[in-house]
């Protein structure tokens, strides 16, 4: 077995040192009823050749996004990741290290986490950011819990533009925390309805921008209304590249900004692992979930970094912790921060501009097709369109023709009554030829 270094001779020698007659003797505490003499009913070990062959066969039964014109978004976006990013994250010192519990020999991890936090704070326009959460949706749920702790109120208002899966994730935690969730009906542009729903019992308002329909929303008025009622504004962003073009949550009055960071540095990976960005105001930081990395000095007064404010966390506070999170998304955060360092502000703005330009081309091409109505008034890189036929069937048909046309809204929320709505995303990887192929295929199926 190539991964097990002990030889039969080693094992015998070691048992001798232990003074145990056999390996079974070391398992003497296992109740007799639970001891198994043989192996479980699974195949035995295999070499790299056999395993690689089996895995390649499974991979071969999937159609990668790069193999066809591809327009899926709805919370996960296909972007180009520079080759150097994947090279660096596979360095042993990053890949095979643990959470930085011994800071003297983990400054590599700690410094990139500090840089990551600084980048996330800048991107979101917030004062402080943590060292990552699992993903955007769990981050949104953590944000609602945090607002509940800060305001001691038990009602969360969710906008009708919030990704339905994010809303469900929030509801799962809110239910056991005793927080009432008031979800607004699905809306392309539901700003007024959200403001209407805020009252003196509201802990927080959760608004997504660009929202699940692609609509870029100015949340300034929602922030004012929330603050007037003593509630917090949580701004969710599922496409982090949009920070390069759109006014940040902080500039619009957010108290907590949460985002899915997958778009920067991380591949689609069928939904995970991703990286949750979480930023807030300095005055709320002691209520924040997750790890925080802070600057300090060593015994010789040299700058260094440590995990800090850990009295919020489960390993210290146990049942009084702000969250139960322990392992987070360290390596995905590293990929994020490397890609972000390569882009810089100039690269990010340009990348965002290319995304926006490609989406405008999609909207222009599709608006000319009979049976397609563009629904999103202001968008970043994703638009919602109404089709003259149910979107799920159209997507299936187009997939057979070699075009992955987008995400039917009914896949996210089957009972919303929006079966004819299709979400279509474009990125810097979308070519003009892809857009032409989509337009042609869509015209055909809707004719």
């Amino acid at each position, binding site marked *: 077995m190539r991964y097990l270094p002990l030889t039969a001779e080693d094992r015998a020698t070691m048992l001798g040192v232990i003074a145990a007659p056999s390996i079974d003797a070391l398992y003497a*505490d296992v109740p007799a009823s639970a001891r*198994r003499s043989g192996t*479980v009913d699974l195949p*035995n070990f*295999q070499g790299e050749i056999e*395993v690689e062959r089996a*895995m390649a066969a499974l*991979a071969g*039964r999937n159609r990668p*996004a790069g193999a066809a014109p591809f327009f899926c978004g709805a*919370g996960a976006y296909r972007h180009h990741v520079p080759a150097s990013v994947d090279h660096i994250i*596979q360095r*042993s*010192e*990053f890949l*095979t290290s*643990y*959470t930085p519990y011994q800071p*003297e*020999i983990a*400054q*590599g*991890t700690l410094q990139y986490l500090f840089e990551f*936090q600084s980048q996330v704070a800048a*991107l979101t326009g917030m004062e402080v950011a943590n060292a*990552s959460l699992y993903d955007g949706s*769990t981050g949104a749920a953590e944000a609602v819990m945090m607002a509940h702790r800060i305001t001691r109120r038990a009602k969360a208002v969710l906008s009708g533009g919030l990704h339905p899966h994010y809303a*469900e*994730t929030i509801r799962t935690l809110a239910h*056991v925390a005793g927080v009432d969730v008031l979800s607004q009906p699905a809306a392309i542009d539901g700003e007024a309805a959200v403001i209407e729903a805020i009252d003196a019992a509201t802990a927080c308002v959760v608004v997504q921008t660009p929202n699940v329909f692609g609509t870029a929303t*100015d949340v300034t008025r929602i922030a004012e209304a929330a603050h007037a009622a003593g509630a917090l504004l949580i701004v969710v962003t599922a496409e982090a590249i949009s920070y390069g*073009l*759109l006014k*940040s949550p902080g500039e619009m009055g957010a108290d907590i900004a949460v985002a*899915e960071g997958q778009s920067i540095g991380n591949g689609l990976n069928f939904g*995970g*692992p991703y990286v949750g960005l979480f930023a807030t105001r300095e005055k709320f930081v002691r209520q924040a979930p997750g790890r*925080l990395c*802070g600057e*300090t*000095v*060593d015994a010789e007064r*040299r700058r*260094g970094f440590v995990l800090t404010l850990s009295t919020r966390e489960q*390993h210290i506070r*146990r049942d009084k912790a702000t969250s*139960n*999170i*322990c*392992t987070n998304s360290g*390596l995905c955060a590293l990929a994020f921060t490397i890609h972000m*360092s*390569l882009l*810089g*502000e*100039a*690269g*990010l703005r340009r990348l965002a501009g290319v995304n926006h330009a490609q989406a405008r081309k999609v909207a222009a091409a599709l608006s000319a097709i009979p049976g397609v109505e563009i629904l999103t008034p202001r968008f970043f890189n994703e638009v919602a369109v109404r089709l003259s036929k149910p979107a799920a069937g159209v997507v299936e048909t187009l*997939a057979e023709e070699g075009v*992955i046309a987008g995400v039917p809204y009914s896949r996210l929320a089957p009972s919303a009554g929006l079966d004819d709505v299709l979400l279509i995303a474009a990125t810097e990887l979308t070519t003009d030829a892809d857009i032409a192929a989509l337009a042609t295929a869509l015209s055909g199926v809707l004719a």
Partner: protein
Amino acid sequence: MTMLNVGRPTRPEATQATQPTTLTGGRGLLQDEALIFELGGWDKTGVDLPDADLGSDDLGELFRSAPIGLPGLSEPEALRHYVRLSQKNHAIDLALYPLGSCTMKHNPRLNEKMARLPGFSDIHPLQPTSTVQGALALMDQLAHWLKTLTGMPAVALSPKAGAHGELCGLLAIRAAHEARGDARKRVLVPTSAHGTNPATAAFVGYAVEEIAQTADGRVDLADLAAKLGPDVAAIMVTNPNTCGLFERDIVEIARLTHAAGAYFYCDGANFNAIVGRVRPADLGVDAMHINLHKTFSTPHGGGGPGAGPVVLSDALAPYAPTPWVVHGDAGFDLVEHAPDGSGSFGRMSAFHGQMGMYVRALTYMMSHGADGLRQVAEDAVLNANYIKARLSGAMTAPFDGPCMHEALFDDSWLEGTDVSTLDFAKAMIDEGFHPMTMYFPLVVHGAMLIEPTETEPKAEIDRFCDALLALAAAAKAGDVDRFKGAPFHAPLRRLDETLAARKPKLRWKPEAVTLVAAE
């Protein structure tokens, strides 16, 4: 070109007694590396992209016009920055990483290669299921392996880490009680538990009560029996426990728990000790998370990502979260919305879980097979017992008898030396090893919890034991300076954690640069 050795000394001169400090902060291969905010240019980028109209016209007020404050690096600068940072980290590929309860084992590179196949890495969670049949088949196979290894009938794959798995298990337990209209209030947790256990129970709305521990490091059955009652929803027990011991009375613990109408949540963090040898189903477990980043070797990556699938008993399976994979008429399908009448407690995250980790874990399982996994457990336990045997003469183990995959010591052997567990740990850094888990579990004074894992060769374990024995002898001989000031040879000396917490500086801010520029 060859190195000319004419006219220059080819042997070192006699070395100086003291080392001068360097003038730049660099030390040989270790560079003193600035932050990207101090290195990068505000207009610089390492990514070449086509020209784009920034599209301010159609976005109006929403256009981001103010500076963001993000530096950029060219590719060579970025490579240097991150490679320099990497050299300040300890890693499993460098030396033993004996963090107890963390299972820092070798990460096979085949797993990384497989996870990067475009058929796995470049597929979208919401593309038509007809185009991702291989991914769904992989999830189905992973589920089969996990169910077979644990003997449990069901598994929820989507939890994203161990603590997320605990949340999944407790949510299922709460849903099961609620479905019967049986609101229960308390969860019992041993004092030796990981902090995530009480944190999770509290998050799910339960009051947490501690179960006492016996003198031999196990759950006190009498105390458990006394505390169980009609308002107890669940117990959360780690097995093998955090003292590195198998809970001898585990079957009785399960029986008492079930008799009280409560569920048995098992923290599976230490599954590595028993995988392939003991099936949790045979112990009476109702739910257990499996840290794929521990037992099944998906890399820990400096703090994640992990994955924490949860196996469930028949009693809890109906409450599992969405989504799940089913065998449909036309192949595999994904149930993303619980059908009417389902007891599912809902969704735990936006998509289907940590696919990248599933690929790595299944690759690992297939590589080892049923026989290899059993050997994994045996070698992990053998290595830990060997360390316990070799060190017990010099260090003190609080509990007698064989341990499982980790060896626990306390600090009574350091009494009178003026060296603490922390000092000892920091001195290990100077000897080239990552310290063990220290001051955990909380039930043992000055705890040192050593988990070598099965991927350490005997020679490396001997090297480690020799180093610890030498350090122990030094501590007992009064060589206190070696410990109090340690580490001396790490990239940094001990860090001021009090300062970091008292005056939190959690991000780089531009003020300092402005000051320099103004001078």
